[in-house]
């Protein structure tokens, strides 16, 4: 159960790829069970920040950081933190849908198996597919290959797969960028449905999407050294109707990209 006011937070976070500083002094607090959007121009570090939250940056050899990042009260980059375990509590969905070359059923079952699930697989899989608003479309072909699904369906399958292990957080990196407009709206609707039962942090370069889908929005920009920093973080309504920072207003109104 979430007892803290914030489920994810960073304090003076600095991230480096080798000698290049990607993020500078980012202090951000993510509230539980709402949708938080990270927006900003290309290269501002929003995906980097997202990947910090579930240790995905570990996969990049030249990655290093200093500062604190916490999941609830747990330091994410502590020696005592198990990255793999974290990733079952903080799931991720990527820009390009990446279903396994397996059946629809086994895509969702995979995470359950890996995590030693001993309950009823059929039930758990149906539940995940329902939560991802995909069940009705695939219930009669669970044994067919996932690769045969449309882009939008594949993405919802990836979401179902992530949901199967009941994560508290879902990180989404441009989840609709590779989809057509209808597929995009379906994912957005799904995000709105999931908010409330899971914390969602979504990176998107589509400002209108951020405005439609999120409860809070954080705007990042690059400084003179091309490191990303947090400019403003507030309720989405405020950011898009009356932001506090001029730089935010300039970005939102398209005065600079």
């Amino acid at each position, binding site marked *: 159960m979430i007892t803290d006011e914030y489920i994810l937070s960073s304090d003076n976070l600095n991230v480096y790829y080798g000698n290049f500083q990607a993020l500078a002094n980012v202090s951000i607090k993510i509230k539980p069970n709402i949708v938080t959007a990270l927006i900003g121009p290309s290269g501002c570090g929003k995906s980097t920040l997202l990947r910090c939250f579930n240790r995905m940056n570990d996969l990049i050899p030249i990655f290093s950081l200093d500062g604190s990042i916490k999941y609830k009260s747990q330091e994410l980059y502590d020696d005592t933190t198990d990255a793999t375990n974290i990733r079952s509590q903080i799931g991720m969905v990527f820009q390009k849908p990446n279903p396994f070359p397996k059946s629809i059923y086994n895509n969702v079952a995979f995470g359950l198996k890996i995590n030693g699930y001993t309950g009823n697989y059929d039930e758990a899989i149906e539940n995940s597919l329902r939560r991802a*608003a995909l069940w009705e479309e695939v219930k009669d072909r669970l044994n067919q290959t996932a690769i045969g699904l449309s882009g939008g369906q594949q993405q919802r399958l990836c979401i179902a797969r992530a949901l199967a292990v009941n994560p508290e957080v879902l990180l989404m990196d441009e989840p609709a960028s590779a989809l057509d407009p209808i597929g995009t709206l379906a994912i957005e609707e799904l995000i709105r449905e999931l908010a409330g039962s899971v914390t969602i942090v979504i990176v998107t370069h589509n400002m209108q999407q951020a405005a439609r889908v999120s409860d809070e929005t954080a705007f990042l920009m690059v400084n003179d050294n091309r490191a990303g920093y947090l400019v403003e973080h507030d309720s989405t309504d405020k950011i898009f109707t009356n932001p506090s920072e001029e730089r935010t207003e300039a970005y939102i109104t398209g005065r600079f990209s």
Partner: protein
Amino acid sequence: MENRIRSDYTKSLQDLQDGLLILGSMVEKAIHKSMQSLKDRDLQLAQTVIAEDDLIDQKRFELENSAVTLLATQSPMAADLRLIISALHIAVELERMGDYAEGIARISQTIGEQPTLKPLIDLPKMTELATTMLHKSLTAYTNRDKELAIDVCKSDDAVDSLYSDVYHELVGIMIEDPDTVQRATYLLWVSHDVERIADRATNIAERVIYLVTGELSEIDISTY
């Protein structure tokens, strides 16, 4: 996905429309009470109308903020956009009508303990017509009923006709007896406020026609 696209947004649009109807109802009641206070010389009722105008103002700002948020966050297009824009305009018209009701209540207070100059017959009639127009304009809005909206605009003639009658009658009284000027003027102001209420109702009706057809125009069918 069973057509569950943008359900939050759809609900927000519905909430905005429902909010307008609530505001309309608040204003209708205020108008009715203000004329009642005048007829019955009920100063307590007049004070209630004046105090409750704050609530009308608050509701209007609440609706405006919702409309602005929808515009900023949902990229509304076509009929959705016209709906939100119309809602903004209609909220303002309704709030102004609330102000006129407050104005009538204040005049009622100013008249104070005295009876009105003459028994009120035309003014309550005008008020009845004006509130019917308000009610119809909001019904037209809810049902996207262009014909009903045009009807509202046509009804304005009857109000203007009574306005003219009231004016002539009061001027006649004033000429006859200059001592009545102050008390007659109060009633003139009331009739002006009621005529303005009716006019605002036609503005709402014009917005309904815009909402339905996408065309902005003054519906010029008055003979006055």
